[in-house]
């Protein structure tokens, strides 16, 4: 039997004495899409950062396809899109993507192809600081997808996107899922998340209050999850 795409085994994370994550455990199969939900400060970003290798655990471990997160081969399979765009304002869109492309062994042709897919070819040689917010977000999406990741970690990817950008991102995520890419996204926009998700996890003050398949109730009623499994339930 093959290892799960993502396995969290008793993950604890302390910031000083405060436990930001408390014994988080779950297995997620390849090609699934997990919507990571929870109130502000529930630990969603902390968990995503640990899965992306940006932060270590205090106790427990996270394995990606059975391998340690910080292994170079593992990180080459992960696409990361955080709160911020992760791009250099003084460089052009093409230079940004070429820089990250070099780290992932991506060719210049692939960079041009992604610039086209996010409709930025016409401004590819302008500095990112001259871009509108939507254009910057689209470029950030291209940067995260550039190397064909097998696991996408997205931290509130729909925040501050306009309708067109949300549609573009949803299209890319749907296509990625069809190709068997595993997706984990944290969000407060429950409706968008439920449309994409096959699994749902609810974090409540660092504890995993619920982990399971997305049901029809969750899709039809955005408040159902918090009412049923949240701490006020």
């Amino acid at each position, binding site marked *: 039997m093959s290892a799960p795409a993502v396995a969290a085994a008793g993950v604890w994370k302390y910031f000083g004495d405060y436990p930001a994550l408390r014994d988080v455990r779950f297995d997620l199969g390849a090609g699934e899409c997990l919507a990571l939900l929870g109130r502000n400060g529930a630990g969603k970003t902390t968990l995503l950062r640990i899965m992306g290798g*940006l932060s270590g655990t205090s106790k427990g471990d996270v394995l990606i396809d059975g391998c340690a997160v910080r292994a170079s081969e593992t990180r080459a399979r992960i696409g990361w899109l955080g709160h911020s765009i992760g*791009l250099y304002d003084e460089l052009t869109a093409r230079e940004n993507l070429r820089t990250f492309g070099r780290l992932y062994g991506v060719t210049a042709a692939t960079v041009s192809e992604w610039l086209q897919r996010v409709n930025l070819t016409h401004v590819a040689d302008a500095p990112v600081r001259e871009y509108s917010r939507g254009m910057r977000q689209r470029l950030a999406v291209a940067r995260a997808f550039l190397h064909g990741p097998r696991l996408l970690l997205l931290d509130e990817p729909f925040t501050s996107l306009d309708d067109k950008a949300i549609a573009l991102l949803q299209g890319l995520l749907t296509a990625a899922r069809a190709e068997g890419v595993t997706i984990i996204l944290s969000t407060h926009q429950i409706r968008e998340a439920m449309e994409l998700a096959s699994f749902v996890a609810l974090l409540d003050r660092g504890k995993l209050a619920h982990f399971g398949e997305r049901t029809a109730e969750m899709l039809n009623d955005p408040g159902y999850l918090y009412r049923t499994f949240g701490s006020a339930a």
Partner: protein
Amino acid sequence: MTMLRHAAAIAAKDLRSEFRTKESINSTLSFSVVILLLFSFAFDPSPDMIAEFGGGLLWMVFAFAGALIVNRSFARELPNDCIDVLVASPASGASLFLGKAVACFVLLFGIECICLPVFGIFYNITWWRSLWALLGVLALGTWALACVGTFFSALTVNLRLRELMLPMLLYPMLIPALLSVMMLTNTLLTGQALPPDFSVWLRLLVGFNIMFTTLSVYLAETILVR
């Protein structure tokens, strides 16, 4: 090889960013030239005095100017959380460190090469008599500054008072390297015959560089992933 390729990509990116914004270059260059100019007027040194403290003066300027450059090294990654994307990439902490240290080295060495003729003019020194040896010693001293500076830049990048903390950590650690490079530069600037302790200072400087480069490469991953 992969590590070197990643380091080269990081260094190229840092240099491109710096040449586009000129944030560190402008401040460092103007600071260095102004200090050299002011000291030449303040002391009006004789050739004997220059033989005594020429190397010290030059490296005092380079050390302070260097702090301006290394301070930007990891701070450049803070806007838009670019540091997260770099740490999440397949590039190891060691290659990130090496790339950034190389970029700092190139910038610092370039500024030193501009400052040397300025120093020669203001202080009336024929500094090119041992040109290659002088450039070699400058390169070794610059690597010490770039390597230790980049390491502490990574360590202090998330601190609110990093501009204050970096020099406080950097300069005490650099004392052996600065001592060596000042003594060596003094000798080479004046074109005197090499004294017997020349090789001792040279070995100290080379040893310092080997030790701190190894240590920084080894610890970079631990510092960057918290």
